[in-house]
């Protein structure tokens, strides 16, 4: 994200000129707004971290202890013993990564077909897919549960209820992804593709060698958005998964809280462990995440 310049600065000068030379702070007055705002934004994270290294007695102390006398990391192994956070993390990672890869592949293929082929019923099929964009998940949730149950019993066990496969298959392609990539592919100059076709390249090769490399920004945006959605999804895993070993991070954390509802130090240690992977991923790829979210906002405008 490009650093912004200060649009208000000339206005400030104008004001200063009008009212004569005024006394000025040695720093931008905006700090006076931004520092308290940042404290409020950060405080929940900080308090979470502090509680996680306190003893239960310190956590329940009145007045609250802002700086623990000694760091007690014992809550972490204890939380790990109470619930398999490593397993939750692994499940979430597998679900998110496979969902992203499936989306990139399937949405790119379908988006390309809709962008470049004109065949009987293509317009109708595209319109049908687009209508699902408006439907809230709650409308499809119950049939999706029944279909997933049926898939697990009659088709592939690993895609059924109580398997992480059930969290991947229904989201392996999305109407949004197809729409998004189709729109992007249509902005690409068709001459490259035609030239490659004349040289005898297959459609698949054209997609793989020419279209996809040119679409890196769109693909990374779709990947980032799909990843966030998959990682934070709660309602569908809640319905589809009962077995602890197949739970993702949010579901595992909710389950853990149910079992240890007032052991705050333990809960916060568990919460920190569930947060850290996403925080690391988020800041490692911050540029992509921010750009993707900004892009959806600007696309909507």
């Amino acid at each position, binding site marked *: 994200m490009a650093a912004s310049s200060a649009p208000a600065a000339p206005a400030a*000068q104008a004001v200063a000129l009008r009212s004569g030379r005024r006394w000025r702070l040695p720093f931008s007055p905006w700090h006076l707004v931004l520092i308290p705002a940042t404290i409020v934004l950060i405080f929940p994270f900080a308090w979470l971290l502090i509680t996680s290294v306190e003893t239960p007695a310190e956590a329940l102390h009145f007045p609250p202890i802002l700086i623990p006398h000694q760091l007690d990391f014992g809550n972490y192994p204890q939380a790990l013993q109470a619930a398999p956070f490593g397993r939750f993390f692994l499940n979430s990672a597998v679900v998110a990564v496979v969902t992203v890869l499936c989306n990139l592949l399937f949405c790119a293929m379908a988006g390309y077909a809709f962008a470049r082929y004109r065949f009987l019923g293509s317009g109708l099929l595209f319109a049908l897919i687009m209508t699902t964009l408006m439907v809230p998940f*709650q409308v499809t949730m119950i049939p999706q549960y*029944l279909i997933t149950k049926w898939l697990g019993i009659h088709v592939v066990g690993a895609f059924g209820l109580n398997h992480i496969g059930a969290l991947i298959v229904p989201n392996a392609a999305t109407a949004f992804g197809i729409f998004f990539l189709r729109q992007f592919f249509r902005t690409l100059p068709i001459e490259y593709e035609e030239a490659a076709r004349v040289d005898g390249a297959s459609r698949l090769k054209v997609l793989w060698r020419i279209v996809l490399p040119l679409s890196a920004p769109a693909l990374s945006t779709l990947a980032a958005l799909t990843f966030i959605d998959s990682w934070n999804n709660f309602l569908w895993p809640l319905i589809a998964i009962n077995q602890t070993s197949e739970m993702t991070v949010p579901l595992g954390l909710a389950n853990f809280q149910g079992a240890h509802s007032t052991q705050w130090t333990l809960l916060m240690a568990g919460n920190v462990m569930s947060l850290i992977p996403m925080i690391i991923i988020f800041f490692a790829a911050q540029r992509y995440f921010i750009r993707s979210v900004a892009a959806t906002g600007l696309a909507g405008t």
Partner: protein
Amino acid sequence: MRPREQAAAWAFLTPGVVIILLFGVAPVVWSAVLSLQRNNLFSPNTPFVGLANYRQMIHDPVIAQAIGHTLVYTALFVPGTMIVGLFLAVAMNRKIRFISVYRTAAYATMAISTISEALVFIWLFDPSYGIVNYLFHVAGIPQQQFLSSPSEALYVIVIMTIWGWTGFAVVVYLAALQGIPQVLTEAAAIDGASRWTVFRRITLPLLSPASLFLMVWLTINALQLFDEVYFSTAGGPLNSTTVLVYYLYEQAFGGANFNFGYASAIAYFLFLIIMVVTVIQFRVGRRLVHYRS
């Protein structure tokens, strides 16, 4: 198109289209059928009962409450998030020291899942040991029950979700602010407009497309509020935080209800509300939004 090309097109389409037909299109039809049936998982037959499920909603007092809570929540959460996001984005849209620290603090709220967020806020707002009540104590305000109080729980959920969405709103508004050409604000300032006038007359109108997007997007999400309610209050105390999606979930999967017929009717009702609200927002928005070029 040649048959070979036809075949190639369908080969490209098949995986994605099959998934969307199976999990996107078919369920829309299926749940419409379910909403016309008396259907719970344990009854062997599922007779069609016409609009009985929809009629049941009219006489269900909890539905009326759930609609009320959903609308109150939405009416507070959406403007709240937009105002916080706009204020912070304007404050952060300048080159000053530590600006990346400030921005990062806002972005960080995007990395936290709804469940992690709710867990932290349950602790912050714990009636006996929470730090918020301690701050109230210091400020001389009487101790509150927060999530355990029927009159306060929904507002605590408003606060926690505004916090959770701050990063998103800031990113959208910052991107829009950076798209505003500086010449416009500079020209106005040279013409003698005060900073507030420049903001009201130039910046705010140029941000209106972003505001419309945020309003629609946040509203759709607010009407579907579930995670925080499920996790922090389970609809209580005394149904005071039962919102539509939570009630729907309870009917379908909570306890041993598996009341799929009734839950599907509620889902379609929710769908209707979302469509109506979104259409109204776009209609009104189109009149108020200034698109450049």
